[in-house]
């Protein structure tokens, strides 16, 4: 589907020296409280973060041509759960990094997310130290704000 993929694997267009760098973008799919915390964390890491509280709204955004470098989603969502949503995102052609989040770590949950096509699985609250390596995988030029000169 046009526009539903991540930006060519998330690498995007990056700066030649002196140009401004494109910010990484993320979509967070979670309940309103966790979403606010996760989005604030991403924004503190200089990632432009958007949020929805259900999979349907996420699919709508993607089908309208929005794309993201990273999608983070909770296992529990109203309607379509996180595992099913991950499968559907991959089936739609979404190629960017997808991280699953859960309230409580369960091995079955981890496996379900990975089998559905997620790249990682974390227990809430996700931490900066867990996100930074992922952001660097997405963009080798990425530097967290505190480490910049």
């Amino acid at each position, binding site marked *: 589907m046009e526009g539903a993929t991540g930006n060519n694997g998330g690498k995007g267009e990056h700066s030649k020296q002196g140009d401004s760098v494109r910010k990484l973008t993320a979509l967070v799919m*979670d*309940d309103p*409280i966790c979403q606010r*915390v996760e989005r604030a964390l991403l924004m*503190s890491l200089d990632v432009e973060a958007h949020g929805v509280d259900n999979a349907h709204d996420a699919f709508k955004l993607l089908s309208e041509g929005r794309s993201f470098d990273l999608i983070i989603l909770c296992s*529990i969502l109203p309607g379509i759960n996180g595992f099913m949503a991950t499968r559907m995102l991959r089936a739609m052609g979404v190629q960017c990094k997808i991280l699953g989040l859960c*309230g409580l770590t369960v091995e079955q949950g981890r496996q379900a997310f990975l089998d559905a096509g997620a790249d990682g699985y974390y227990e809430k609250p996700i931490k900066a130290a867990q996100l930074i390596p992922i952001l660097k995988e997405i963009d080798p030029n990425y530097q967290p704000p505190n480490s910049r000169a």
Partner: protein
Amino acid sequence: MAYVGQLQRKFVEYTKSLYREGIVDKQFTQLHNLQDESNPDFAEEVVTLFFTDSQRLLNELTNALEQQDVDFNTVDAYVHQFKGSSSSVGAQRVKDLCISFRTLCEQQNKELCLRCLQQVKLEYASFKSKLESLFQLEKQIVEAGGTIPTID
């Protein structure tokens, strides 16, 4: 200014006691670290949102456990959600109780789940009351012309 100093000392002591008693954990510190000029009240806003959502979750849990035939998958999903949100705001004791609650859901023990729910409600009420007092102290400091001390 002596009054501001007094309020600030009270704030520092009260905040330290919340950490000492395990009411809040490092994630609560993180909420404050995420505050900036564009989001100066982020911690209070998120915790206030948590209060509203927690009430809903506790009502749903009560309703689900009062059914004749309890659907433990439904109960489990609510507990899972509550654990997620309580851990995201740093409500340590509430979060820890949710972990125990989850085990009881897996055992499908209605009686023990009901007792655990009661404990969760009490612990949540304590968290809410203490955080409201903390936010009230913050307001008093600002209204008196002071700044909120940062806690190491």
